[in-house]
């Protein structure tokens, strides 16, 4: 066993202090970090064409949503996203689905989208390299709403019935241009 020399107390004071120090250092670093701009990425669409986020940043309001075929909350959210994509398409709203299924189940992705009548843009991130940059914990669904200035306006971890109501209001506000700096915190 690799743990034979483990400390006998749980956990030792030294380790607690070390963890706290590192966490505080991180908080300081995060505190001085500039305002969040979304990580750029270039991924293939389902039919093999390339999509680059930077081609759209600063031009449209973009909702980047990470999902997988096995994710039930993702499946519940997708019809609402499709409705929003249809309703706001002419106003400069772009929904970008990013599928994170492994390559072994790739053949199921397109039939899945067809079954749910999803026609908005969907990209493939089979090695989860892009998901890692947005959400290292990899919980799904996970979405980021990007405003017309190209900055992250809000993140949406998970999906619960009714989330689409608030999302629709926020997107409409961004499209109308009636928003300044605002990053609502659902805990508030």
């Amino acid at each position, binding site marked *: 066993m690799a743990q034979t020399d483990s400390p006998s107390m749980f*956990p030792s004071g030294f380790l607690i202090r070390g963890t706290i120090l590192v966490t505080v250092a991180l908080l300081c670093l995060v505190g001085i970090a500039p305002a969040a701009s979304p990580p*750029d990425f270039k991924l293939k669409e389902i039919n093999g064409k390339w999509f680059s986020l930077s081609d759209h940043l600063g031009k449209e309001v973009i909702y980047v949503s990470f999902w997988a075929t096995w994710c039930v909350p993702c499946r519940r959210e997708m019809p609402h996203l499709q409705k929003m994509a249809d309703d706001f398409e002419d106003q400069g709203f772009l929904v970008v689905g990013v599928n994170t299924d492994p390559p072994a189940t790739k053949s199921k992705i397109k039939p899945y989208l067809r079954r749910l009548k999803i026609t908005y843009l969907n990209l493939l991130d089979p090695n989860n390299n892009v998901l890692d940059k947005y959400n290292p914990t990899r919980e799904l669904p996970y979405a980021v709403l990007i405003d017309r200035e190209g900055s992250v306006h809000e993140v949406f971890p998970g999906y619960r019935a009714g989330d689409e109501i608030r999302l629709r209001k926020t997107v409409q506000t961004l499209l109308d241009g009636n928003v300044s700096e605002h990053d609502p915190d659902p805990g508030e």
Partner: protein
Amino acid sequence: MKRWIIALAVAGSAAVAGAQTEETTSTPSFRLFGQTTSYLELNESEDGNSDEDYTKFKQLLNFNVEWSKWTVGVQVDYLYYSDPDLADRLDLDRLRDTWELRRYYVDYTSDHFQGRLGTFFSSLGRGLTLFVQKNEALGFDEPIHGGTATVTFDHIDVTVLGGNVTEPVLQNQYNRKFEDTVWGGRILARLPHDFYFGGSFVHSELDRFFPEGVDDIEVWSLEGGGAEIAGVLDIHAEWAEIEKVEALGTKEGYGGYLSVASYFGPFTILGEYKDYWNFQYRYNSPPNAGRSIESYNHNDVRGPRLFVSADIPSIGAILSGSYAWFDSHKKETSLGGTDGDQQDEWYVTLEEMAGPVYFLSSYFNRHWSNRKIRQEHIIADLHLSTGERKEIIVGYDKRLEKSPYFSLATHRSYAGYSLSPYGVFSVRYAWEEKSSFGTDDFWGAELEYLPTPSMTLRLFGGSDPGGLICAGGQCRVEPRFKGYKATFSWRF
């Protein structure tokens, strides 16, 4: 071992080539991101013997800096067991070091080139030749330590990779760490009208279980297909061959896979044919159109599957069904042969989204006729929305495996309610029925709370039967649990 260094050299060359061809139009940007997760587990002995209670604590710190096209990251894990000898043999953490540098990488991404030195996950083809992926739900988290590079030209993508890797489940079974090496590459050409053609190759050197030594595995594949052929047809075909040089001699095998998908009116149809013979090795996971929450054999199996799905707009439902019939290549005369291993598998799923109701129900049945083994999996999941981010959740899940000599049924039920828009409280009751052993009961309660969009807190108290769990097409057996768990994650 030297070969992956060669692969890295190729990656370096590709980097130079890629860098020369790309445009430098993007504006440099600077960003810090990462996560910290604390996990505490208080394990209690099932028979009430406090001498067998133990504590497990994990602290994960992941920190990344992105500047322009460069990203640099590290992840440090701290692991503590109050008594390491009591850790369950199915616990995938138990062989890990107290302190581990789990991730370290330098990543460069541009229009025509992506390269990474350090830790990474990757697959080649559709997993026929290489599959090394993180699976959060199962706790599989063993990256390749080495390097990878992908160069993208107008119609061709070239990927090379190499490094050391270990397999999480086997090393636990054999109670020692394995250090394996993989290197290889893939080339894919995009042809007109959404057709594509390519191939991949992987060489791996695998730490042998017994006797001590190294097995050499070489596998290559050719793949091709097209999307939206005649507007209604997607096709993918792949053929692979494998050679395994092992302690007892050289074995050869092959893997063939064909999938065809079509769509018309309310119907979606997906068909597949697979033929895998002596094909599985430690780092591949061949394609499979079956359910990602069931376990499948990829070493010796052949046969077709048909999946059909239909909309029923009048009731807002989707009805899906699948039937598959598989056989094996092994015959009665072969070592360990079973005179074929015929299995038929079918499942139906009904999914309904109507107003505040989401309902999913599914029945799965698999029967091995020669061995007289039957598996069933029943799922029912109901979500009733009671307001914005508020819902009532009720569910049931049953797995049954029955043979002439033994049967095991695991039932899980749960009921949850949103205490607030950002918290859910749920209670669970599970029971396990083993033939000749009676029934065991398991009770538990869980609270999930999101104080902010970037923080998650989970608390669990009670017991859980463990057993087979599958996610994303992979499976593992989880240990039983009794006690308390607490997880706090913060993304930044």
